[in-house]
């Protein structure tokens, strides 16, 4: 179900006023609703209690659910993410938070060797229904260890779902799905979409969100804009850049379709291929590192299925294979942006 379809299909609420929320607020609502519904859902992480999480989505949960279910942890990621796996094995549904995706290096074993393989090497008996939340992305000069995306790093490792919403509607529905999922789900939040007071937010991420609980399925891409000449594939932040590029291209008579992946694992290959069958041209935009990444996977998917679908070579726009530099001129030069997408599309026409 696409974003548009989901909105169309949602139960009609009488006298419902439009309610625009940030992703942070939408996630907060999803988590609170699931915690009310299922007493096994609980939160662990650094600064999620009284602070309400650095990325702003756990405010008020401590007050409502108490310290037993909203647990500030020591800075001991190996311990508390490993603990989430054990707790999940015995019926709990932990949501574990780790501020920045960059920090997962210290506790990666608990993620990719424990959580991700728990079902497989126990033939489905040691389930690990847990959500790992983390923030990704740069563009605000936070340097080498606080600006990465690492989508491909996670999506490469079998056994966990890896998702990221591009707007608040999807955020709420996808978080609800993630909490109810019996598998580990890495739930990424893009900093430039989150709606934080200390950082700018792309306005397109702040959309109408129903009060009632609903789900958006994991593993389904969304056609965020219909077009016929070129397909622009992105996720999170790059979806919004794709949409802006599409607007600019429209003025030049180029009709661009924008696909929001929403989920990297599982990857909705059908929606991508269907779009390229229609447009014949493909640009993949990614703010993660270029090589061995999301762009390569999407292009391989399309060419493997039907290389004839392409009228010209596909293009990829991604962060070059260098650590994220601090100083603004260097970082901005490396990030994907609207101009780069427009130029790529033009060169394909």
């Amino acid at each position, binding site marked *: 179900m696409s974003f548009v379809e989901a909105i169309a299909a949602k139960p009609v609420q009488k006298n419902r006023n439009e309610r625009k929320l940030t992703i942070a607020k939408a996630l907060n609502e999803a988590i609170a609703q699931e915690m009310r519904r299922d007493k096994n859902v609980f939160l662990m992480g650094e600064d999620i209690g009284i602070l309400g999480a650095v990325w702003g989505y756990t405010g008020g949960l401590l007050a409502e659910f108490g310290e037993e279910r909203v647990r500030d942890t020591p800075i001991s990621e190996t311990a508390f993410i490993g603990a989430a796996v054990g707790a999940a094995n015995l019926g709990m549904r932990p949501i574990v938070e780790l501020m920045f995706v960059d920090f997962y290096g210290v506790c990666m074993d608990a993620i990719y060797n424990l959580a991700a393989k728990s079902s497989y090497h126990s033939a489905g008996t040691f389930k690990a229904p847990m959500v790992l939340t983390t923030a990704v992305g740069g563009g605000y000069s936070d340097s080498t260890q606080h600006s990465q995306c690492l989508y491909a790093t996670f999506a490469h490792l079998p056994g966990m779902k890896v998702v990221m919403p591009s707007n608040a509607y999807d955020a709420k529905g996808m978080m609800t799905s993630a909490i109810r999922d019996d598998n580990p789900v890495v739930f990424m939040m893009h900093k430039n979409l989150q709606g934080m007071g200390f*950082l700018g937010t792309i306005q397109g991420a702040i959309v109408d969100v129903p009060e009632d609980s609903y789900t958006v399925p994991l593993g389904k891409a969304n056609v965020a804009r219909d077009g016929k000449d070129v397909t622009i594939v992105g996720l999170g932040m790059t979806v919004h850049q794709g949409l802006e590029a599409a607007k600019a291209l429209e003025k030049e008579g180029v009709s661009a379709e924008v696909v929001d992946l929403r989920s990297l694992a599982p990857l909705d290959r059908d929606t991508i291929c269907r779009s390229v069958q229609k447009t014949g041209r493909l640009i993949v935009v990614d703010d993660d590192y270029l090589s061995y990444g999301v762009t390569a996977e999407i292009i391989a998917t399309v060419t493997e299925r039907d290389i004839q679908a392409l009228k010209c070579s596909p293009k990829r726009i991604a962060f070059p294979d*260098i650590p994220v530099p601090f100083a603004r001129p260097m970082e901005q030069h490396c990030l994907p942006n609207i101009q780069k997408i427009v130029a790529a599309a033009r060169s394909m026409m």
Partner: protein
Amino acid sequence: MQPTSKQRLWMYETMVKSRYNEARLSATYMEGKSPLFNMANGPLPGEMHLSDGQEPCAVGLGAHLTKDDYFACHHRSHAQALAKGVDLKRMTAEILGRKAGLSEGRAGHIHIFDYEVLFWSSGIIGQNMGPAVGAALARKMRGEAGIAIACIGEGGANQGGFHEAMNLAAVWKLPFICVIEDNQWAVSVPKAKSTAIASNADRAAAYGMPGERVASNDPDDIFAAVGRAVARARAGEGPSLLELQTVRLQGHFMGDPEVYRPKAEIAAKPEMDPIPHYRRKLIAAGVMTEIEAESIVARAHAEVDEAFAFARSAAEPVPEDAFDKVFV
């Protein structure tokens, strides 16, 4: 071990310099960030962790170190960097993202790297422990002078890598010192909520090394405790653990309104400030006069102002510079 008058004056001057440096950094940081605060804007974007209040730890440590001692520091590192003798001009240029900076603008404030004095700092909590132990190992294996120090917050001491590194340093009897700067807070989490024991010095027993806690945030007391650990390391007798109780006078990072911190504690900040205390102490002890204190302050400020003038007039990197230095 008591500091000499010369060492005490150096400690006072370095504390004053560091505090003024933070004040200038925070003023620069706020440029372009009001009325709307957005971390991405202004001449100094990104995150900013200030070391106000923790200067005694830096100077009590720095007074014993030479440029051959390897120092791996945490994210709140400006005071420690100054006390270790990091080039202030190039450090300021780095924090402002200039090509003349220590890392040519690639790193910013969380990653201060100065090979001349073997100092570096890190953004991942606990990441510095292993490398400092390895540096101590290199000194021992190569038969060279020089010891290694890792400095970590009390929050960071709960990181798994902390324990692994401590045991390794002890089992190999390395010239290593771990200094825990206990400012009582890890962002919004107070020590009592994250750490099962009150004093991390007690943990030293688990590694078979001496452990000491200094609770006064007084440079002279810290100097004495560090002196014992440094003498032990230089004599080849093995590692030590020190926990220094200190105070974080600012928010975790700039823009943190500290909603989680008790009002009384926030109100008590001026009283907890170690610099006026030390100034009064040195004057009372006859180490300096009011007039001498003022000239020290003026000299320290002038040095910082000069560094800012240098950094602000230095050129930014060009975009293509991003591609250099990925490999050596």
